[in-house]
């Protein structure tokens, strides 16, 4: 097995607030191999965006990383310890250099008073020593590549002159123009219509093949994950509860929360199937449940409830590298 592009180990991240320390990410570990698409799924408030932002050190000033946390980025055989990069000059490699990010709301991600072209050229010139003429040439080439018609004219336009789908394409073009090794896509299709979403997903798949980059794809939509990801990680209340290949997680989910998410999805091939919601709401991160964080909403923990309430389940892996943190699954009665 090749060494991973990025390796997150025991990441624990807390925010200092007036109410005290809030744990947003708790002991999360995962790897992303070169060329791999990892889907990160969870409800709002599960900590998926905070985890992704940690890779680029983009979390707010009041964030505190535990000493045990490690994020190792491997670029050309060299290991870089992301969390020890303190100066902006050093952080260039994780902010647009080897790692790029596309955001959910493309309107809010572009500066409204600067043309799309200027913004693309600016970041290319920051990350390389090319001339502005060369940067413009590359930018227009990238706009062509993502399927924007008349890229030379579009280059001089502002974000408000683009439609939602076009903006997201321009965002992808901008993120990819520095040829990053890892693209973080934070709900990139959530604000788009289904037909446009399908176009953007196709485009991202093509680009992964072409540039051989890895993607950390964050979404709450399991359908989008099934269509794009190689592996899936499911988060709940700051914890990773299940990780496996997309087939393992979607076809034979091992954690009750993953099963709950799948059961609450309306399925088109079975209109009669009842929608079964996960009962209750996600607890406040200020008041994390003891033991298994999911036990307050779990419908399957009846038999060994006491253990679920008191004992934190260990994150264990089966022979096929399908990892799960659940007492029930490790007891072997998941069937």
């Amino acid at each position, binding site marked *: 097995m090749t060494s991973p592009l990025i390796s997150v180990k025991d990441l624990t991240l807390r925010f200092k607030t007036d109410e005290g320390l809030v744990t947003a990410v708790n002991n999360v570990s995962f790897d992303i191999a070169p060329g791999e698409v990892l889907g990160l799924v969870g*409800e*709002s408030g599960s900590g998926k965006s905070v985890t992704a932002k940690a890779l680029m050190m983009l979390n707010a000033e009041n964030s505190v990383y535990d000493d045990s946390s490690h994020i190792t980025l491997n670029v050309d055989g060299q290991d870089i310890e992301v969390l020890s990069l303190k100066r902006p000059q050093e952080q260039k490699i994780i902010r647009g250099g080897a790692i790029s990010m596309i955001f959910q709301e493309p309107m809010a991600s572009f500066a409204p008073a600067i043309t799309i072209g200027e913004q693309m050229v600016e970041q290319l010139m920051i990350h390389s020593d090319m001339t502005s003429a060369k940067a413009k040439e590359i930018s227009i080439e990238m706009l062509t590549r993502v399927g924007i018609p008349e890229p030379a004219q579009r280059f001089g336009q502002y974000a408000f002159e683009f*439609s*939602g*789908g*076009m903006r997201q394409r321009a965002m992808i073009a901008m993120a990819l123009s520095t040829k990053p090794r890892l693209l973080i896509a934070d709900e990139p299709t959530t604000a788009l*219509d*289904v*037909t*446009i*979403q*399908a*176009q953007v*997903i*196709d485009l991202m*798949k093509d680009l992964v093949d072409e540039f051989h980059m890895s993607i950390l794809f964050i979404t*709450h*939509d*399991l*359908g*989008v994950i*099934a*269509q794009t990801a190689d592996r899936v990680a499911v988060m709940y209340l700051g914890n990773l509860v299940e990780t496996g290949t*997309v*087939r393992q997680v*979607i*076809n034979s989910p091992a954690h009750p929360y993953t099963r*709950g*998410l*799948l*059961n*609450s*999805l*309306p*399925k*088109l091939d079975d*209109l009669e199937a*009842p*929608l*079964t*919601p*996960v009962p209750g*709401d*996600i607890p406040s991160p200020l008041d994390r449940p003891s033991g298994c964080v999911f036990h307050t909403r779990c419908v399957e923990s009846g038999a060994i409830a006491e253990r679920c309430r008191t004992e934190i389940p260990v994150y264990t892996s089966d022979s096929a590298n399908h990892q799960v943190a659940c007492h029930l699954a490790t007891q072997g009665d998941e069937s």
Partner: protein
Amino acid sequence: MSDVLIAARNLSVHFPLRKLGFGERPVVRACEGINIEIEKGSFFGLVGESGSGKTTLGRAMLKAAPISHGEVVFTDGDVTYDLGTLQGDELKDYRKRSQLIFQDPYAALSPRMTVRDIIAEPLEVMGLTSGREETDARVREIAAKCRLNLEHLRRFPHAFSGGQRQRISIARALVSDPKFIVADESVAALDVSIQADVLNLLNSIQRESGITFLFISHDLSVIAHTCDFVAVMYLGQIVEAAPTRKLFSETSHPYTKALLSAIPSLDPDVRGNAQRLEGEIPSPINPPPGCRFNTRCPYAQDRCRKEVPEWRELSSKHHVACHFAEELA
């Protein structure tokens, strides 16, 4: 055959824009020539992309958007209202009989009112109860129906999660005992597990009280699960309408087909066999001539670019606006 509660006949909603230079004043044709009939006690789904005019249509049926041409007729027992000319006391009465549930439960509730006051406000404004005790009793009854605790009623909206807030919005819409509710993207802002919960609640309310729903959504899989009749909208026009099962088994309009195939499948083994639509929805100021879908339709021919397709009945209750619906089905 049950009765029709509310029907739109040849309904158009136009929004005039500011005149730019010479020539005619530009007009946004948000809805154009809409014909739908919503039967009493049905759960009518309206699906379309953003900019298709589905919200405008929903609002026109509540008399919250101007009706430019055509008519909307509401019939409930012995009252019949033509919304185009409705005013005064009759309009007030219509407001009691029809309600709206909004998309964003974070924006729809006043942060400075308690949940009790939010739910009680329609009763007080419309003068439906004769005293505070009666109001409180009614609020408690509706709150219980929407699975809100008595203790919740004293709190302010900020103390609630998205799903609970949406239940408060639903309670507020139900409190005046309406006959017709428009739910505009009411689950779009919610997580999937909470979405399932709210959909189940709406369905059980509909079954118990027989309220007629117009459920607007961009998500066909949500529509498929909750509604018994579906209309598909594109650029201000309805392109296909049929009972849910029929729409999915005998899909006839190419746009409906494209919408269906664009929904990401949950099966990782059926990737990429979807039929992809090129381009984006055109501007409703200058819709394309002929069939409005011709610029994106993979089957478009000369006739589609010239001739507006007729809104016709393909089989019982299944209407479509496409020249080639039979060949494509």
